[in-house]
């Protein structure tokens, strides 16, 4: 993860697409799978900012050490910001 530290908008680092997938997985980014690439673009910056705000981190909009560290901590699979899993499921 060290290569990502302190990258910000405009950077192009191999592997950022994985972090975009992480952000997408937990509801911070909503883009089509085909548009997920290694560019640190504005959408990703917004996603990082939302992530930092939601998890009580320092809001920098960058992939700082605190943010990267948080992303490596095991967590619950429920999305943080999107609709819940299977809201239509009603028990009969």
């Amino acid at each position: 993860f060290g290569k990502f530290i302190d990258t910000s908008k405009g950077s192009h680092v191999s592997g950022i697409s994985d972090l975009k997938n992480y952000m997408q997985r937990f509801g911070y980014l909503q883009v089509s799978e085909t548009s997920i690439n290694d560019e640190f673009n504005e959408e990703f910056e917004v996603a990082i900012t939302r992530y930092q705000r939601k998890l009580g981190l320092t809001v920098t909009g960058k992939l700082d050490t605190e943010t990267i560290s948080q992303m490596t901590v095991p967590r619950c699979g429920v999305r943080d910001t999107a609709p819940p899993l299977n809201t239509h499921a009603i028990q009969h």
Partner: protein
Amino acid sequence: YKYFKGKPRWSRAMPTTLTYAFSPNNIISSVNLSDIKVIFRRAFSRWSSVIPVNFTEAEDYGFSDIKIGFYNGDHDDGEPFDGVLGVLAHGFSPESGRLHLDAAETWAVDFEREKSAVAIDLESVAIHEIGHVLGLAHSSVKESVMYPSLKPREKKTDLKVDDIEGIQQLYGSNPNFNIEALAQSDTSSNRGV
């Protein structure tokens, strides 16, 4: 605290009792089933101490309100697990009742017995996922049990004011619950730290 979209909750009249059961086919062998049952009984009691909802274990998995199971990888609910660490578990919003744990984790009921560096405290995760099953979404309060992450070998089993206020907004308060006692306890803890 936060809720799922639409603020779903178990819609029956309070006080009520929800049943829970363990999937007979999706269980782990690394922890005794009896230990797992003790842990979940304690986890449910944390929530029932603050809201007018009781939980009781049912024998009939198919008819229980809350269905608990340990699963590997893709288990046909659209939310595959990812192996050791990463995603630990997920709970579905009311009134689905599904509570799934990643069977690949090193689940611990006692860190004295389980020495693995990647051991995950089962009770902490159970309490968190029961919160989802009852209708709480993820909180931004780091100390709360509804905060989304948990480090290996970390325990987080005490409901915080944020958790309690959130769940009581949905179900009301257990008449025997005293928020002032909890607030004093929190203050004492903070002073100690």
